[in-house]
């Protein structure tokens, strides 16, 4: 019997596979296709305090082995989430993480303050890295100082663990990661999407209404994996790796490179069963290699 559970210190997951925010809706969208109880967890779509519209279409453009999105974080806000969605999520035996958004540090804090009064949430993933809400992809995760101030304020406010979700669109993610750690983040999740664009050569217009969007999917995996390895080697808090994970092999690469758990994103669109298939592939790998506990694999990259 292979033990797939992983311990983040503040949170034990039944397996390392988490549905990534922005690709997993509010979780319920996947109920027709998979048993949500089988997941290590999932992160519900980013929530601002108030409902939000998001960007005009086109919001998506496919590129070779990748997807650029400029959805712009539409959502139902914390009130409707706590009334309409959360009660339905509470019946599942899996880890529910809420992705927390804000236009200011105060908004991040107010989202957390509101949700703290409701049961059924294991942790908050602080979305300081969405490239689609401000011009030129600006977000706190582009600067160590802004990261520090957002994470430290939310950490002070929150009764629950904080996972800071970092951006790859910086010179050195390690510096941002160290800032988040110093500010009190309990874990890091990385990476969010890569700022990207595509052009229609017939009309000479950008293919996204927002001009820029965030690139995800297999196209980014090698870079995201490298960043995960760099960060995991420098921080003491757990790192949740993500970027282009489609298969068990992809997830294993991240874990060997140092990720304690992984988030699966774009794969959910291609196949709503992806998360469950990846869990099965992890189990098969462990059985084949005679690994009793998948945790023993984490950070075992050979020199």
């Amino acid at each position, binding site marked *: 019997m292979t033990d797939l559970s992983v311990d983040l210190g503040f949170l034990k997951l039944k397996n390392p596979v988490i549905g990534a925010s*922005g*690709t*997993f*809706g509010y979780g319920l*969208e*996947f109920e*027709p*296709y998979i048993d949500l109880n089988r997941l290590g967890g999932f992160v519900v*779509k980013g929530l601002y305090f108030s409902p939000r*519209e*998001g960007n*005009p*279409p*086109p*919001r*998506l*453009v*496919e590129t*070779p*082995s*990748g*997807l650029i*999105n400029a*959805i712009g974080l*539409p959502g139902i806000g914390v009130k409707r989430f706590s009334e309409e969605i959360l009660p339905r999520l509470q019946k599942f035996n899996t880890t529910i993480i809420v992705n927390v958004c804000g236009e200011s540090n105060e908004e991040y804090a107010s989202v957390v303050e509101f949700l703290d009064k409701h049961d059924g949430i294991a942790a908050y993933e602080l979305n300081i890295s969405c490239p689609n809400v401000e011009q030129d992809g600006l977000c706190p995760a582009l600067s160590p100082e802004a990261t520090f101030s957002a994470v430290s304020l939310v950490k002070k406010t929150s009764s629950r663990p904080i996972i800071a979700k970092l951006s790859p669109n910086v010179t050195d993610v390690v510096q941002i990661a160290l800032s988040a750690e110093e500010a009190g983040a309990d874990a890091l999740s990385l990476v969010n999407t890569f700022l990207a664009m595509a052009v229609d050569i017939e009309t000479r217009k950008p293919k996204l209404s927002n001009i820029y969007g965030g690139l995800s*999917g*297999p196209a980014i995996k090698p870079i995201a994996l490298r960043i995960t390895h760099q960060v995991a080697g420098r921080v003491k808090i757990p790192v949740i790796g993500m970027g282009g994970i*489609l298969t068990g092999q992809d997830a294993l690469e991240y874990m060997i490179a140092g990720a304690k758990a992984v988030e699966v994103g*774009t794969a*959910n*669109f*291609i*196949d*709503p*069963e992806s998360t469950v298939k990846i869990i099965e592939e992890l189990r098969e790998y462990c059985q084949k290699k005679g690994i009793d506990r998948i945790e023993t694999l984490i950070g075992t990259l050979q020199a």
Partner: protein
Amino acid sequence: MVKDPQARIVNKKNWKSYFSLSLESPRIAAQAQSGQFIMVRVSAHTQPLLRRPFSIHSKSEKTVEIFFQITGLGTELLSQKKPEDSLDILGPLGKGFEAGKNLKGKDIALVGGGRGIAPLYFLSQKLRSYGATARIFYGGKSQDDLPLKEKFKEDGFDLYWSTDDGSSGFKGFVSDLFKTKLEKLRPERIFACGPELMMKKISLIAQEKNIPAEFSLESVMGCGFGACWGCVRRIKRDNREEWVKICEEGPVFSGNDIIWEEGDE
């Protein structure tokens, strides 16, 4: 909503750049309503990465059929599939046409432009089963863009067709043809699918004549089941406008609710 990882292709038809594939999927066929769609994975690899949405063109007890035109890599790869190959499909998805037994005995106009004819065939069959009279208005750029003309004729529907270049039927847009025919015909309901401008014109005609109309909208989709929020459209809801997910609340919307794109009047 079912995932069928191995829906076998049992029939394939081809007319120049248009194709149809019949897929064996009893569970999806059992649930399918006219106006709904399926998401098809065209490649097991990562290029193209995402599934592609297709309206359900017809169904039998065990099969659902899709009808498409080659418009890019996804449809090109799909056009190369052969009978006995199988496809990974999700469906049926979305909300279809509001066409029920209440339309019995009524005169209904179905207006399709180009590949937008796809969902209207399924609807025509359903309307007939309810005892409604469906008239088909079918437009294309040229005679090669009307591959389903014979099928509708063989089924005995009243068919009116147009081509932009006049190579077959009425010369001009199908919306102009439709307007001309309204001098004599009095449809009580309109269902339409096609290019944005065509649907916008039909919607204006419908509003002018006070005929309820529904439109099936097309969009790039990330997932098809509401998780990605990628396929939104401006829609009127309770006296305000919202971005609404086409995959979940559509693809069929009432003409009164759709905010049409600007330009090209």
